[in-house]
């Protein structure tokens, strides 16, 4: 079976307790860009993003598409799924995560997401890319298809995580959008997953472009970039620390809002390198066998 052109709902999902961060919205704008390049129709893409500034959210998404679109809130996803008419769902989750689940007004637990997908009428399979921190809490749950009586089975759910029981990593990248080049700290696993959909690669050489290929591609490239960024960051970290200390001393000697801003900027640059150096990211996939036969 094929996802693009089939009965597939493509979900771009960003829930948040308060306002979604711009960098996470751009993750999804890049997703829209890549999915349309892959031949997915905007009518089959559903976007759910939380936040009070709906205009800015739409402005960001518009960077990735010239098609008309609607951005709903995360709670609408769970409502929409009660009347699902698609056989397949491919879902991309970005934003924050923690031990309670995906960040939201009421954090979304693994059981809540899995139950929603399993209960979706007509749904046969769901593929979920989880980019948020601590995505590994969604691993080791009963995602496979099960008989629910009278010859019926519930949906086969495939979860993939950018990271296990650690934070996930983002790195600054500049990508070409419809309005020009945009720079943002991108969720690396999602960046490469989206890239794979726009330019599929047959990683395992079986002659097909499958979800398993997308997992291996996103994993290999995000790990490679992380290693390069860590090495470069270590080399720069001493210099960045010295600059931060110097800016802090300037602000302490002659405090002012501008000096505080400079100190914060130096600390931000230093802290981003430290985050990279001290976080280990390793992707994972749950219910891998069906993913080997689901073609894009």
């Amino acid at each position: 079976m094929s996802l693009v052109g089939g009965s597939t709902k493509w979900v771009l999902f960003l829930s948040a307790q308060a306002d979604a961060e711009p960098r996470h919205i751009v993750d999804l704008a890049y997703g829209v860009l890549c999915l349309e390049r892959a031949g997915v129709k905007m009518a089959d893409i559903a976007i759910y993003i939380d936040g009070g500034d709906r205009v800015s959210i739409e402005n960001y998404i518009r960077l990735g598409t010239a098609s008309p679109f609607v951005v709903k809130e995360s709670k609408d996803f769970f409502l929409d799924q009660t009347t699902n008419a698609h056989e397949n769902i491919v879902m991309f989750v970005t934003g924050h995560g923690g031990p309670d689940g995906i960040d939201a007004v009421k954090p979304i637990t693994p059981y809540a997401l899995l139950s929603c997908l399993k209960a979706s009428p007509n749904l046969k399979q769901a593929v979920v890319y989880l980019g948020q921190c601590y995505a590994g809490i969604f691993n080791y749950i009963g995602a496979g298809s099960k008989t629910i009586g009278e010859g019926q089975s519930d949906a086969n759910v495939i979860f993939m995580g950018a990271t296990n029981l650690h934070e996930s990593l983002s790195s600054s990248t500049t990508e070409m959008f419809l309005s020009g080049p945009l720079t943002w700290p991108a969720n690396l696993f999602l960046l490469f997953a989206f890239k794979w959909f726009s330019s599929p690669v047959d990683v395992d050489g079986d002659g097909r472009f499958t979800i398993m290929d997308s997992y291996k591609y996103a994993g290999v490239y995000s790990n490679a970039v992380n290693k390069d960024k860590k090495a470069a960051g270590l080399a720069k970290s001493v210099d960045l620390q010295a600059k931060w200390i110097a800016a802090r001393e300037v602000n302490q000697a002659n405090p002012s809002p501008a000096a505080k801003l400079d100190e914060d900027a130096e600390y931000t640059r230093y802290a981003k390198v430290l985050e990279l150096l001290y976080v280990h990211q390793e992707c994972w996939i749950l219910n891998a066998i069906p993913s080997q036969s689901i073609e894009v």
Partner: protein
Amino acid sequence: MKLHDILSARLPEIGDSVKECVNLGEWLLFKTEALAGHPKAAFYLKTDDCIFELDDSGRLLQEVTEDADKLEIDELFYFADISRPTSLSNTRL
């Protein structure tokens, strides 16, 4: 949303480290069409925790403490003469 590249000399009051955060995409330098209530602000700077009003030279005016979520981001700015990250999606191994 419009994307602009400007020279760093266009905003001389902004420090180099701030400009580098902007070019990394960590902080946002932007303009909004919704200027009601902020007549002196030419630009806005969004950091990790705050949004500041800047004048036309980049001088920090004040922190936006009310209705910050109503500052629609309509134009984003980067500095053309300060390095920006390259595309990671085109990484080749």
